[in-house]
């Protein structure tokens, strides 16, 4: 398996997805004074299991618990890399996901598209 480590991905993270299927995503965590930015990257064909979008409420919670991220400071971003096709729906995209956190559970995800520049500014500023 060839997984590219890039600007938005420092490691490949393994998690149990839907029906406990072994799943993977790219992961980058950037700690800032005010907040912690988590970028989860969809690895498409390399991922044998559940997509980050389908599993985001569970995955975001798991990442917060595992890496001791304060929920209140979390900025959670879903990244889908460019699949290098001619089709527009395979282009790179970034979505900030806002969760409702109720009783220690992440619920009701709402997505907000971000530009690459916005993401770059966020992780470098």
């Amino acid at each position, binding site marked *: 398996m060839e997984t590219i480590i890039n600007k938005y991905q420092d490691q490949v993270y393994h998690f149990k997805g839907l029906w406990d299927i072994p799943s993977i995503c790219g992961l980058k965590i950037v700690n800032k004074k005010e907040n912690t930015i988590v970028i989860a990257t969809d690895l498409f*064909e390399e991922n044998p299991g559940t997509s980050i979008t389908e599993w985001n409420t569970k995955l975001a919670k798991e990442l917060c618990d595992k890496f001791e991220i304060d929920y209140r400071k979390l900025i959670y971003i879903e990244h889908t890399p460019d699949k290098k096709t001619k089709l527009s729906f395979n282009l790179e995209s970034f979505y900030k996901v806002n969760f409702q956190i109720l009783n220690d559970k992440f619920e009701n995800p709402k997505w907000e598209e971000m530009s690459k520049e916005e993401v770059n500014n966020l992780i470098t500023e």
Partner: protein
Amino acid sequence: MKFQLVFPKWRKLEGQTTFNLPPHGAIVFAATIPDYVEVEFIDENLEEMRFDDDVDFVGISMLLTTQVKRGWAIADEYRKRGKKVIFGGISTMLHAEETMLHADAVFLGEAEGHMEQVFKDFRNGELKKVYNHMNDLPPIEIVGPARRELYKRDLYYHKGVQMVDLFHASRGCKYSCYPCAVSYLGGRQFRPRPIDKVVEDLATIDNNRLFIVDNSLAQDTQWEKDLFKAMIPFKKKWMSHTIEDKPEVLDLAAQAGAWYVYQAVFDTSDYIKERVKRYHDYGIGVEGTILLGLDNQTEDDIKRLVDFLLEIDLDLAEFTVLAPFPHTKAYSDLIKQDRIFNKNWDDYNAGQVVYHPKHMTAERLQEMYQYAWDTFYKDETQEEKMFKLLKSVVSREVEDGTFRKRRQDLSKTSFGKDVKHKIA
């Protein structure tokens, strides 16, 4: 023990020719059931339900998203009568959590090697709510011949002409296409069946015409060639999804009885035009499958695409609109963008727009879908084009001595029902 295996009906698309093909997944599943179980199969598309039959256990096999609500309603009826119900099949996996609300058990994954345990649990009153084998696919070698004797064969005739039998030579797909859920269904790896197993299965099929339902045969050239070589002696004629268009593959496919293949047409490129021509050069027909409503399509693109289809001499075309089935990238993208406005699974039939397209309104896409069908079949109807394809296969069958005459005793029925003659 009596097990009633049900394939629920669904609402057919309006204005299109409907053919009821014998369901495949259910009888492949049936082959995994222990020998001591007596299985009866009901295809609700062609038969009435019999909720009060004296059966011990009920299985509901669901293939399509547009089938699930009916499957759930059927389960509710059986369970009201105290019968235990287990669900399985592709759309059970796509809609597992919702299905659990109507089930005593759901089976997720491929059934081979697991049914002894399920039926043992049933007999011991220890049926589990979920049999999760999504991550535990069986070795492809143990997939045996489907139980075709369970079909009520006479139902699958239209005016005396037998419908094709469905057949599979492989599972999985190494591609992960935008609207497709195969990768979620455990299919990221192409798993070809050993050729001797394919031959064993083929030998059980008393039908000279087949539909090879594999996602794509174009995934391993050597296996594909071996498959076609092994099929030649059977002299069956068949349709399938994509096959490779290399000359040596097409030559073997033609010898093996390739009748026509489905070809996705997603743009107006020379690549598609030449590919269609290559199939035709080997006497293989082409049915274009055209998905409308993708984010890169404008109204003008759709119009240009339809004009192109008419230019490239396709034998048939099937238009669909994008249906964002759960567990696909299409679904994820549209959910993120809050563009899905209809979550009634009955409407996920690939003929009804359930989301806001990018470059037009949902209503306009619905009109463009109709425009595509109407324009492509303006000069020659779908029935006329189908008849041409049928004629081509009949000629080949007559030549090689495999032609079967129309069954006279069923010439006035269509899928088990009397044909009504219009009186002028």
